[in-house]
Every structure is written in structure tokens, then in C-alpha cells.
């Protein structure tokens, strides 16, 4: 196990459940210090991938290496810690007791008071876990994950089921913690979380990486604008031949042109055709997400 090894190195991992292929030959390298979002709709294989990455599930094919070793090695040494979606807490312990108990499982753990503080739950330290809200329990899981001061922090849809305020508080705690050098990988289906907290987005669909790049690059994948106009009998081929045009869609009298050069398309429509009601809209990350996760597109920028 060397320190120059990638934090995460997934090589062609595959996992099937009966007839369903949850993860399909997925490969991914994450260097130390990266903050990476695993973005994808439900069923894209995010949780299965995270389970394999942590050693909770074994891939049918392919290998998983964390810092050059097995996930079990990394867990033993406290190099990786995770905040999972659900379950996993004893209701009859208090918040502080849960942290103290878990601290004893490590050869060397951060002081319980410190992780409670960093997770923003020092004020509810004496509350029974069973009486904590979902968001508070999630921050307790985060506090537990901080105990070994891990080099890699994995968060599996950490804010699922939280209200807006809970989500904001949770991410505030994560951000406040983000010391330089810690690798963070989080799975989410919230675009805004990926956009706001990750340096790099890995887009998953049907167990495969469909796009991988910085937030800007991912946005760029579905960049350009959509020019829409009412144009009965539009000449699709002529529109598609215009410079910068990616796609032409005709829905009845309505024509939608996806393009990198909306000016040319607009000029063409207004001067060469009978188009009216012309509108130009830019695409956002939401569109990129939808385009990449619903189309059979397998673009990758890495």
C-alpha cells in the first residue's frame, strides 16, 4: 500500500442481481484530494458501486483498490469511512455514547467531543439516538465517519429524506470539515448538490459511466441553446445542416433546434422560413443530466 496509489481504483467492476446488471464493467480512478460526485437517477448503480467500493459487496468481475490495497485493508486502517443511507444506529444509546463506543473500535481515533463539534451535533450529545431526527442521525453517522480521520470519505446519498434546511445544515458540516487532502466521494441524485459541492462529476446510467468531468465540462456536454419556433413543414435536413446544430426535433408544427450557435439558427429561421414565435433558451445542468441519463449517449470527456 503506497501513498502514491490512487485513492480509488475501480477496474471493470460488474455486479448482477439475477437478471439485472446493476453495475456493468465500471472503471474509475479517483486521485487523492478530489471531491467527486456520483450522479445518476435511482437504479443507476450508485449504491451498488459504493457497496463494492467499501467491501460490503463483492464484484462479480473486476477489482476494487483503495490506496493500492483492498477495501478491507483500508477499513482496518481507518483510511476509508462512510456515511450510508439508512439504518445502522442503536436507538438505546445517546449520540455521545454512540461516538464513544465506535471510537473504541479504532486503534487511534479523534476525540469524540471534536467529531461531535465538527458534525454540528455537540448540542444534542446527550439525546437518545431513537429520539433524533433523520437529519440529526445522518450527522451522527457523519461524526462516526470522522473518528478515524479518514483519507477517503464516502457518502451514499447522505441527504435523502432530509428537508431543505436539513440538507443545508448537513452540507455545511461537510464543507466546514473539508480539510485539504481528504478525498470525498458522494453519491447523489440531486444535481444542485453535485454542482455545488463537487469538483468532478461522474455521471452514471445503467451501471456505466456515461460522462466524467468537471461540473463545467458536464454542463458543456449538453451545452448550447435550444431554439424553438412554430414552423409548419419544417425542412429538418436544411436545419440540421446549419453550423453548430446538434439535433433537430419536430413536434407537429413545433421545431426545436439544439445548437451551439443559436444566432445562426435564429437568423436562418426568421429570414429563410416562415417561422414565428421564436424562443431561445439555454440548457442547464438539469438538462445535461436528463440528456445524459435518458438518451443512449455515452460521451466521456476523460
Amino acid at each position, binding site marked *: 500500500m503506497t501513498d502514491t496509489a490512487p485513492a480509488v481504483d475501480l477496474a471493470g467492476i460488474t455486479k448482477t442481481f439475477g437478471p439485472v446488471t446493476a453495475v456493468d464493467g465500471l472503471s474509475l480512478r479517483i486521485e487523492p484530494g478530489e471531491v467527486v460526485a456520483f450522479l445518476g437517477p435511482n437504479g443507476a448503480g450508485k449504491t451498488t458501486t459504493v457497496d463494492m467500493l467499501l467491501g*460490503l459487496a463483492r464484484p462479480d468481475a473486476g477489482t476494487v483498490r483503495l490506496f493500492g490495497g483492498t477495501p478491507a485493508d483500508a477499513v482496518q486502517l481507518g483510511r476509508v469511512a462512510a456515511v450510508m443511507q439508512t439504518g*445502522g444506529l442503536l436507538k438505546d444509546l445517546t449520540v455521545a455514547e454512540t461516538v464513544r463506543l465506535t471510537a473504541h473500535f479504532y486503534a487511534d481515533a479523534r476525540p469524540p467531543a471534536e467529531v461531535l463539534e465538527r458534525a454540528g451535533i455537540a448540542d444534542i450529545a446527550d439525546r437518545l439516538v431513537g429520539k433524533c431526527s433523520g437529519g440529526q442521525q445522518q450527522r451522527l453517522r457523519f461524526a462516526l465517519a470522522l473518528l478515524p480521520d479518514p483519507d477517503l470519505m464516502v457518502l451514499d446519498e447522505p441527504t435523502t429524506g432530509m428537508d431543505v434546511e436539513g440538507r443545508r445544515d448537513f452540507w455545511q458540516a461537510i464543507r466546514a470539515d473539508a480539510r485539504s487532502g481528504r478525498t470525498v466521494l458522494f453519491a447523489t441524485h440531486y444535481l444542485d448538490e453535485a454542482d455545488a459541492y463537487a469538483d468532478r462529476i461522474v455521471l452514471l446510467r445503467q451501471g456505466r459511466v456515461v460522462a466524467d468531468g468537471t461540473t463545467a465540462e458536464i454542463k458543456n456536454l449538453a451545452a448550447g441553446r435550444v431554439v424553438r419556433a412554430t414552423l409548419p413543414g419544417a425542412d429538418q435536413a436544411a436545419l440540421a445542416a446549419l453550423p453548430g446544430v446538434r439535433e433537430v426535433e419536430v413536434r407537429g408544427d413545433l421545431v426545436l433546434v439544439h445548437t451551439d450557435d443559436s444566432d445562426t439558427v435564429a437568423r436562418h429561421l426568421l429570414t429563410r422560413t416562415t417561422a414565428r414565435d421564436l424562443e431561445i433558451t439555454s440548457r442547464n445542468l438539469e438538462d445535461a443530466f436528463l440528456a445524459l441519463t435518458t438518451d443512449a449517449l455515452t460521451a466521456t*470527456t476523460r
Partner: protein
Amino acid sequence: MTLTSSTAAAPRSAADRRPPALGGFSAAVLGIEIRRVLRNRRTLVFILIMPAVFFLLFGLPQRNQYLDNGNPVTGYIMISLAVYAAMVATTSAGAAVATERALGWSRQLRLTPLRPAAYVATKVATAMVLGLLGVLVEFAVGAVSGVRLPAQVWLESGLTAWLGSLVFAALGLFVGYLAPAENVMQFMGPLLAILAMLGGLFVPLDVLPHAMQQIAKFTPVYGVGQLARAPLAGTGMDWAALANLVGWTAFFGLAAARLFRRDTTRV
């Protein structure tokens, strides 16, 4: 597109990191576990209070009765109920595994360096501490109520009741790995009462019909009950009872180990 500025050295180098000693088993963890169980009022009632109350209700009225060898009948009842207290204590401590699996805590533990074997060792140790507590409380109630026995009988019966209850720690673990359920003790309680009855802990077996007595000798409580009372009755070593105890301990222990392996390798 990787970050260029964020590869600063982590505060802890990998060389500093080491796995925990003994796979994470420690006296501190054991202490927290025991405190946790003792805080559960329900457990306290079943382990410590109920057997003591049974003694006051059913033992004390026999105050002036004596066995053939001159030892008091109250001693016989006290030792039986000490076995009962220990069996409820150790079974519930073992069966706590069921609750923790149901809650997903065992999954959470797999993200820590705690070894599954260290987890089970903690559960068994907790069970045995609670079992000892059950025996001690029952004996204390007996002594305060006037039970007088030779010192050797106190010691031998107490140790046998306590150490023999390992069979129920194994039973608890077996059940715990069989079914993840938060309320496992709610159906284990009645089952334990039936086993205790068949094992002769509530009434002497010779009041039961003959056929029943023969069956009872093969049930898991019979062996430890007979052995624990042997020093009092002065009957010497009962090899059939010992075989019963060893057999059931091995059976539940191996069954629990098998399920435990299935649980921890299930990935």
C-alpha cells in the same frame, strides 16, 4: 481535470495507521455494552427482579422443608432459579445480535475495524457478566431470606449455574443470527419458560408424568439444572446431565458459528 492544488499531504500519513488490537475487542467496549443492557428496564425486570420475586413467592413458603440429606428445600429452589436467571440473562444478551442486525448496526460495524469475531466475543462476555449478576442476585436474595448452605455448595452450585449458562449464550447467538428481529425476546421469553419447566427449574421433574420426564431429560435446560443442584443434593457427578449440557452447548455453538459465518461472508 484533476485538481492541482488539493494534493497537500494529509495530516496523518498511512504509515501511522494501524488496525486495532484484538480486532477491536476491549474492556471499554464491554463496559459500554454492559451499561447499555443494565439501563434497559425490561431486561432488568426479567433477569434480576423476576427470578428474585419467584423465590420469595415459591421458595419462602417451603422454609421448613428439608431434603433427605438435610439441606433445605429453599436451597434447591434458589439454585434452580439462579440457573433460570442466568439463562434468561445470557440468552437475551446473545439474542441482542438479532436486534442489532435488524437495526443495521452490524452493517455499520462492517465499516469499522471491529472484527466480527471480536463483536461476538463482546456479546458472549456481556452475556456471561449478566449471567453472573443473575446468579449473584438470586443467591443474595436467598441468603438474606435465610437460606443456609455449606460454603462448598454455594460455590460449586453458583459456578455451575453461571458457567453452564454458556449454553444459553450460544442459544441466544444462534437465534440472533437466525432471524433479524427487534423484538426477538418477546417470543424467546415464553420459549425459555417452557424449557425451564422441562428442565426442572420451576418444579421438580418427578411431579411430571413419566413420559414427560423422559423427554425432559433431553431438553437443553435439564443438564445445567441437574449439575447445578448436584452439590446440594449430594448426588455426585451426573454423567447424563453433563452429556446433555456439553451436547447442547456444542449444538447451539456450532449452529451459531455456521450462521455467523454465513452472515459475515454474505457480500
